[in-house]
């Protein structure tokens, strides 16, 4: 699993000309585990996901729900070959939950910039979450946010609406 096997762990070498299909598969498996294992830093980052989630949870007793990804312009481009060039380096994402939409536009190229609009417009607090935790927290009376200098990687937006009793919405994790 760790892929840390030493060369001494490798099965005895059979001349390639004598390899059966299954022997070739076994040998290829050993080679993959030895030379392309899951990186240690990734292993550590994923093991910390539950702890980071608990530490970063700021729902304040409100119910937290996922605003699910319902539209991704990159997915749209799959069916409409050539359309992507029209939008240039801009990706549009829509997330929805309970009649609330979070519309996002990400402009790529080096560090990303992001425009986010809560629909219907209303006062909201937005947290930008990266793999390492909450990176920014902003507040706007109309639920409109503009961020620049975002690094590529996993991203989720957590949106707390001012309306009484409204759930805290966390968008589906996406890679930007």
């Amino acid at each position, binding site marked *: 699993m760790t892929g840390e096997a030493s060369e001494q762990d490798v099965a005895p070498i059979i001349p390639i000309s004598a390899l059966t299909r299954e022997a070739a598969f076994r040998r290829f498996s050993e080679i993959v585990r030895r030379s*392309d294992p899951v990186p240690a830093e990734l292993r550590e980052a994923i093991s910390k996901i539950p702890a980071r989630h608990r530490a970063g949870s700021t729902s304040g007793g409100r119910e937290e729900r996922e605003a699910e990804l319902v539209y991704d312009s990159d997915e749209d481009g799959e069916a409409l070959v050539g359309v992507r060039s029209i939008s240039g380096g801009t990706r549009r994402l829509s997330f929805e939950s309970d009649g609330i939409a979070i519309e996002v536009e990400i402009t790529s190229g080096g560090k990303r910039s992001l425009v986010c609009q809560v629909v219907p417009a209303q006062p909201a607090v937005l947290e930008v979450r990266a793999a390492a935790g909450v990176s920014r927290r902003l507040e706007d009376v109309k639920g409109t946010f503009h961020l620049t200098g975002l690094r590529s990687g996993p991203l989720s937006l957590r949106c707390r609406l001012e309306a009484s009793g409204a759930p805290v919405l966390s968008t589906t994790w996406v890679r930007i």
Partner: protein
Amino acid sequence: MAALVRAASRGSDEAWNLLFARFGDLVWGVARAHGLSHCDASDVAQTVWLRLYQRLGRLTQPERVGAWLSTTTRRECLRLLREQQRQVPSALVEQLAREMAPAVDEIELADDPRADSRRFWAAYARLPAHCQLILRMLVAEPGSSYQAVSEAMDMPPGSVGPTRARCLERLRANLLYPDSSDGENGGEQATRQRALGSGRRRAAEEVS
């Protein structure tokens, strides 16, 4: 497996780590089989695992979490590749080839594990993309049913075994004939011709 997912959804770190121990190689293997760099594959893998954590309590079929992970990873890889506006590449293999030992002659290749690795990666690089993916998935899921593979590749479960066999046969052919230009497209006839040739090559090696 469903019990593990449910335990993780209730906040068990141990269950979460067991899920990763069980499927970490699968997610990584799918990402790397799409030719993603270490950095891109890590981003994709983190996104997929974060998404799983977010949905643990809402998976409609928690017992099929492996299939969910492989399918989600593949979709994210394809989206990234579209974003980068490039074809499915062999960046992984090119990178690994650079990291491996320098070229040595045929006899040393057979005896040296590092050179042996380099030869396998070179043979793998010449496989069609679907073979690269299926072999990496099966390396990560050696004892499983073919469910995760079939769902990620959108093929009937009954096709996985025969496809695996054909891909391994191509891998063997590419190993035997590293300089053959049609290795990735050779059919049964070409494979038979190569097999005939292998006898001649072995004989030549023995003579030398």
